């Protein structure tokens, strides 16, 4: 019975680290192949990690609630295989894989495991609590306490740093845009979808920053900190336009997802001189069908469970969401704003916006991205778009850029030049 070290598997390429939600197998417990060993949270998603062979849990190296980097040892297990182990099996061979098929990795620093200073981090109990509450990764923080101990104050300071290096998110709950990168090759404005928020662009923003773009994600009115002032989409668009800064060269690439796609079309139609290109990810406004139960469910979701049920419709493969993320979404949502916007978008399952005429007038290059497993919109409706519009189809649900960044983002990052 060889003893093996279990390491944290990578579950999708945006994952650098994961938080152990809980161990389902305690030391001394036997498990059968396929049984869930533990639950891991990463990128707001909870995933069950199954055993690939029969065995026994020997020791947990990482406790529930702790965050570790991918490939970091998390447990010692004994496996009950009959044949002698291969020469390499005694080393830290991963003994399990996830139900996410491995995909080619994007070569970037972002995707390498974060440096973790041994298994132990010197941090005060208060620092650990504050890090837990603020979702901060302790190994990233330089401790100022005795012997380099990370203090609670260090964590708070780290979490509230208003200026971060390029490529990282500036989190802000006051409606300020999230920013990534520097405008070496241009500026991209990112508009999220209905009931979404700027954090859904994190991976996109980081990718664009790596490619030399400045990316800014804006919060739409009616979401989180901003109320809806007007009662029509025109007023909503005017409000968004008034919040857009002017990039250095005057032009920006506009990227909109779903509702943000419809808004992007209207911005480009009204202000054609400033839009260098238009990228629409599963946009509203080019067809008639919409999943009304999703809209209604999102608007009226009062519990984490109800919210999760709706969010599971947004991806090709339904995902589980972290309780903390669901709670945060529930807390920041504005039901009145969402209801108003939902009525602007659709009634009785029929989209109330038809923006193809506007699209036809836009001179900047336009691209439309769709996932063929979209459960909110019918991707086939994009097939009737004018021929000058490029259509890119992916094997995802409604959230292509979020679900499959390694496939989608390299395409998204090749912005077409204006003719």
């Amino acid at each position, binding site marked *: 019975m060889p003893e093996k070290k279990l390491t944290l598997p990578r579950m999708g390429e945006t994952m650098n680290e994961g938080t152990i939600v809980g161990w389902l197998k305690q030391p001394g417990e036997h498990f059968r192949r396929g049984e869930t060993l533990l639950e891991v949270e990463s990128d707001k998603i909870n995933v069950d990690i199954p055993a690939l062979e029969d065995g026994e849990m020997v020791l947990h190296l990482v406790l529930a609630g702790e965050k570790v980097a991918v490939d970091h040892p998390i447990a010692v297990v004994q496996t009950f295989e009959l044949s002698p182990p291969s020469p390499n099996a005694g080393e830290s061979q991963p003994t399990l894989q996830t139900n996410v098929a491995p995909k080619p990795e994007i070569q970037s620093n972002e995707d390498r495991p974060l440096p973790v200073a041994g298994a132990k981090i010197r941090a005060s*109990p*208060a620092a*650990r609590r504050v890090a837990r509450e603020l979702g901060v990764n302790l190994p990233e923080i330089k401790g100022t*306490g005795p012997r380099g101990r990370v*203090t609670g104050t260090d964590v708070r300071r780290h979490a509230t740093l208003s200026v971060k290096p390029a490529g990282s998110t500036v989190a802000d709950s006051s409606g300020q845009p999230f920013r990534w990168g520097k405008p070496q090759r241009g500026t991209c404005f990112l508009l999220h979808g209905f009931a979404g928020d700027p954090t859904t662009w994190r991976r996109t923003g980081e990718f664009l920053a790596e490619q030399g773009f400045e990316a800014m994600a804006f919060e739409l009115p009616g979401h989180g900190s901003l109320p809806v002032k007007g009662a029509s989409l025109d007023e909503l668009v005017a409000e968004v336009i008034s919040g857009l800064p002017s990039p250095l060269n005057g032009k920006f690439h506009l990227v909109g997802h779903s509702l943000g796609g419809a808004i992007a079309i209207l911005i480009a139609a009204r202000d054609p001189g400033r839009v260098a290109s238009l990228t629409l990810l599963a946009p509203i406004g080019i067809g008639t069908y919409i999943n009304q139960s999703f809209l209604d469910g999102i608007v009226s979701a009062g519990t984490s469970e109800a919210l999760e049920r709706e969010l599971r419709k947004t991806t090709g493969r339904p995902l589980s969401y972290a309780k903390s993320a669901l709670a945060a979404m529930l807390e920041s949502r504005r039901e009145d704003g969402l209801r108003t916007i939902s009525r602007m978008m659709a009634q009785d399952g029929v989209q109330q916006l038809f923006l193809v005429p506007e699209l036809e007038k836009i001179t900047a290059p336009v691209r439309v991205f769709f996932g063929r497993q979209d459960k909110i919109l019918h991707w086939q409706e994009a097939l009737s778009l004018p021929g000058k519009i490029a259509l890119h189809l992916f094997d995802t649900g409604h959230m292509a850029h979020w679900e499959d960044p390694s496939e989608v983002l390299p395409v998204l990052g090749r912005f077409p030049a204006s003719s």
Partner: protein
Amino acid sequence: MMEAPTIVIIGEEVGAYGGAYGVTKGLLKEFGKERVIDSPISEAGFVGAAVGAAMSGLRPVAELMYIDFSGIAMDQIANQAAKIRYMFGGQMGVPMVLRTQGGTGRSAAAQHSQSLEGWFLHVPGLRVALPGTVSDAYHLLRASLRLADPVVFIEHKALYVQKGKLDPTQADADWGRAVVRRPGDQVTVVTYSRMLTYALAAAENAAGHGVEAEVIDLRTLNPLDLETVSDSVTKTGRAIVVTEACLTGGPAAEISARIQEECFDFLEEPILRIAGEDVPIPVAPALETSSVPTVELITEVIRKLVR
């Protein structure tokens, strides 16, 4: 004694001599030898008599000249006074005060200078009070005389010369509640008895160096007001427990452990204990002084813990 005719005092030299440190001076003349009783030199005898008197309706104050002598009376204290209510199914209790004094400061040597509150803290059934201010010497004693439980009331011999203002019209001490004697937000110093005076002086010194320490006077160790302490430690993230009692197995260990259990998620630093050395108290004044915490030591620890 004027208010409650059931209160009697019994002990060695409490009458004609007025108490070894003068705390019962004049009482014999005022209340007579029926209520102020000079006992033979037998701690087991007069403490036992007080336990019996308390069981039969009086409210005795047994005056133990030095806490160091409590060993002789310990069966009466720990096995009788502390257990009677339980052994008799709650039919009667022992509402008495064992008034005594301890601590260093008068070169009284190893058998007359100990801080033994930990012995009593370890016995369920005993209340333990240690006044650190002039007002508490009066109002906490009055509160102790109203309790249904036996109270070990431990004064500090070095505080007998401390001057302070007393307002006899003020309400008696809120029994079992600690008091924040000095507000601060960077470190909590938990203490009682004479070390309160030291801690307050140290906190003032530290304030001169920009460190604001909150000083909590526990006043009673049983009950232990953990709420006041944890409110403070939750705020400051740092705690120091200061006792004159020696370190090993002492009250500081118990208090520290409880803070850790209550406030773990809020601690920025390990909880530190500043306590007496694990030695017999020497008679030479310089050695005696250095066998227990000093203001300088407390100041230094406060400053080092908050950098």
